[in-house]
Structure formats: structure tokens, C-alpha cells
């Protein structure tokens, strides 16, 4: 399938990535080739199997002891006491990241 630079730009926004023009061009080409290869899965007339992920078994969702906050923040790039410190969440350049 053909994929446009606009689609790549949209995907990059969704994935929180900025792409240089050279990256954009290369990724448009690469993803187009990969999607062409995976087209072999489409329109084969096979029914959709309903036993998806047959090998997955999940444990009970029981809470376990978490890391103590002071320890958890010890590897953070920036922290304030026992809290992760981040730049403002509201305002700023939202137009670029919608």
C-alpha cells in the first residue's frame, strides 16, 4: 500500500516523535515497502480465527508491594522531594503536539 508523508507526520505526532525531513522521506519509503510485503495477509479468503492469543493465561490482578516513593524517584531525571518533577503540563506549544 502507498503511504503518504502526511500519514507519516500524523503517526509521528501520535507517537510523540519529531522527524527530520530526511527521516520523513526514508520512513515513508521504508513503511511503504514493509506494508507492501504484509499485504500478503490480506484478502486470502480465510475466516478470522477467534481463538486469538491462545497461549496467554493471566494471573489474578492482585496488588503487590510497590517500590517506596523515595526509592522510585531516585532514578528520575528530575525530582522534588519524593515527587517526579516535570515541566508545565498546561499551556506552551500545544499547536505542535495536538
Amino acid at each position, binding site marked *: 500500500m502507498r*503511504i503518504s508523508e502526511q*500519514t*507519516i507526520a500524523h*503517526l*509521528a505526532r*501520535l*507517537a*510523540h*516523535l*519529531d*522527524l527530520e525531513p530526511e*527521516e520523513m522521506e*526514508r*520512513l515513508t519509503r*521504508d*513503511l511503504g*515497502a*514493509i*506494508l507492501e*510485503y*504484509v499485504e*500478503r*495477509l*490480506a484478502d486470502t479468503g*480465510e*475466516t*478470522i*480465527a*477467534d*481463538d*486469538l*492469543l*491462545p*497461549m*496467554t*493465561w*493471566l*494471573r489474578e490482578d492482585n496488588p*503487590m508491594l510497590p*517500590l517506596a516513593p523515595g*526509592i*522510585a524517584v*531516585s*532514578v*528520575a*531525571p*528530575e525530582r522534588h522531594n519524593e515527587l*517526579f518533577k*516535570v*515541566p*508545565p*503540563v*498546561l*499551556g*506552551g*506549544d*500545544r499547536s*505542535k*503536539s495536538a
Partner: protein
Amino acid sequence: MSLLALPASTLAARVKKGEVRAAHVVEESLARIESENPRLGAVLHVGADAARETARRVDDDVSRGIDPGPLAGVPILLKDNISTLGMPTTAGSRILDGYRPLFDATVVEKLRKAGAIPIGKTNLDEFAMGSSTENSAFGVTRNPWDMTRVPGGSSGGSAAAVASAMTPVALGSDTGGSVRQPASFCGVYGLLPTYGRVSRFGLIAFASSLDQIGPMARDLGGVRAVFEVIAGHDPRDATSSIQAPAPARTGPLRVGVAQELLSRPGVETAVAARLEEAAQKLERSGAKLVPVTLPDPDKAVATYYLIATAEASSNLARYDGVRYGLRVPGETVESMMRLTRSAGFGREVKRRILLGTFVLSSGYYDAYYVRAQSHRALLRRAFLKIFEGVDVVLLPTSPTTAFAIGDRTEDPLAMYLADVFTVYGNLAGLPALSVPAGRDAAGLPVGAQLMAPPFGEDRLFAAAEQLEGTGV
């Protein structure tokens, strides 16, 4: 003879008897890493002080008559996407440069309890995404058999380290062939355990429904000994299985031979020839050869890349510059996140995140993701049906021997096809073992792959025993 040339189980037995000191083994391993690593680039971090301390404890146990465990004094290298307390864990990515986990992965805890000595961390394709160990932010790893060639990937550092006798054993992780393909390229054994058999707790997630940690070693006994230590239920991994291993089979081994794969375009003649010889050797040992037809490998690769990238795009959303790893400052939290991810992720990782985002996006989800999941279910059914008639299946690990560094970096699809025979195991959740099966005319190792039904690792070991000695 160097102690590091001994099989892991022999080495452990000698340490336990007090014939060899663990401290001495560790010094040999550290010296070997120091002499070999500058040319190979297999090891990213060495934890010398902690390794020496662990060795002292093992030697103390021996001197006091306490059994240090089945891997007493055996130095082991760990792929750098396996969390280690006290050593960095980078996943080969700039975004985790300098990150030091606050806990050990379950496999590392188990290795320590068994007397093994984690000695360092090995290079990998960034976030285990690759088949050549050329995608690491910290340099390429070279194949010890030919320095102009790749060691395979993504566990190329572990494979090169074991092949060059830095340690007798190492751990890798396998999402689409990342233990088995480098094992094949470097002439060592590499095991993908049944999905759920080995805990993924502490393994940096790439594609959670496909990822498994697996051992690599120069001898079959080493792979088996490490597997037996790291296998088992772990409540900290939601997908860890409580199922018991399959009972051992009696009578002659029935080996399914996927003959038609050997004449596929892209399969090197030496690979096909070594596989024919492996089949003949199994037959001479009393096995019954049964022709089998495996599901279309091209469809399997397509299925794999849709599912793996979808899961990766979700798993890698956690790298946001907030809690650990790299942060590139920005005016708002959103710009900080974009700047951090753009600077921190390499080319292949961005490619897969975008493909995964596409696969999961509205309008394409049913056409790609749901269809891929359906193919995955059909593929698993097909394999379970095949295993009603055979105990193991024999096929190549890789269609080629090690390719040249730089050969495939500009063509992602060519790189993805390096996994054409290995993705079956991950998609179907089956165990598979790459066994050294001789060399090509240039002296490069060829790997034969054995696959078994779920929890049938013992069948793989039984079949591989018949092939021992054909290797490099």
C-alpha cells in the same frame, strides 16, 4: 587449558569440589573480556567488583561445606535488556543511557541463588529490534569467526561473548529469533523456551506476547543447566505458566523434516546441505524421519512484524523522560516528551514505533492487527496438528550464514527476512533450539533448528544430543 573452555557443568562441579576457586574463574573471565572485547564489542558493562565479591561468597560456601548451587562459580554475561541491580541496563538505547534498575530480573535472582556469577552486560540491537547487533547506540558487535561479519542479533553480544569464551554461558532474549539466529551465526547453542516457561519480570519489554529470555552456551549441557535454573513459575510475571513440563517420550524419536524450506529462494546451499546431514545423522541414531509441511514462512514474517511492532509501539510509550532515563528539557511536558523520544530512540526503533502506531490506528486496525492475530492463531493450530505426528521438527535456524556488516542496514525488509524460520516459535509460543551443525565453505557456522510442542524442551535436548559433535 583455560577454565573458560570447560562446559559450565564441569566447571561448577570442580568449584563445588574445591578443585578450582570461583575467584580464579572470575579473574580468567575478566582477563578474557579485557583482551577480546576491544575487537569484538560484545560487552557493554563489566561489574568486576560485584563479580569478585560474589565469587568470594561462593568460595566461602564451598570451604564451609555449603552447596553454592548447580552453577557454582560459573561466570555469566547478561544481555543488556535484562534488569540488574548494581549494573547499568541500557537496552542498547541512548534513551536508557546511564539507567540503573532498582531491582534484579527474576532470572538474575535465580542465577545468583544457583551460585552463578553475573559478570557483565552484553550489546544488543536497540530494544532487541534487529537481527545483526548493528542497531545499538553503543557500537556494532563483530562475529568472532570473521570480524567483517555480523554476529546476528539481537543477542549478538551474548553470542559473540560465548563463542569467544569470555564466559561459558550467557543469557539473551528472543522475540522473533534473537537468541537462536545469533547462536547460529556464532556456532553456539541457543534456546527459545516455551512462552511462559521463563519469567519475563525485569526483561525490558519489546513485544510482550512474543518475548522470552533464553540461554546460550558452547555446549548443550550449558544451555540445559542454565535453563533448568531460570525456568519456573513467577507470580511477578502475569503470563508466567504454572503448567508442568511435557512428560518425556519413550521409543524412537519422530523428527518432522521441513524439506521444502531447504529449496526456498534465499536459502544458501551450504545451509541446506548441513540440514540434510543433520537429518541423516538423526536417522542413523534411530530417529524416524517424517516429511512435514510448515505454514507459509512469508506470511509468518508478515504476521510477526505487524504484531511485534504493534506491541512495541505500546510498550515504548513509557519512555517519556519523566521517571527514568534520558530527558531533553522542553517548555511543556509534551515538548519535553517529543524532544526526549526524538533524541533518545534510534532509526530502527522509530521505524517500528511508527509501523506499530499505524497498525493499531483507527481504520487500519481490523485490516492489519486483527488479521495478523488471526494468522497467528491459525499458525499455532497448524503446528499443534503437526506435533500430533512428530516429536520435534527440524529446519534451518537462518537461511544464511553470517552476513557482512553494513550489508542489510539500508534495506529493513531484507533484515526482517533473516528471521524467516525463527518467528514460528515466538508466534506459536513453542520452544526451539539452535544447534551448531557444521560450517559453510568460508568456515562460517551453520545452525540447525529443532522445534517441539509447548513445554517439550526435554525433547529438544534429547534430539540435540544425537546431533552433538557435528558442530563447529
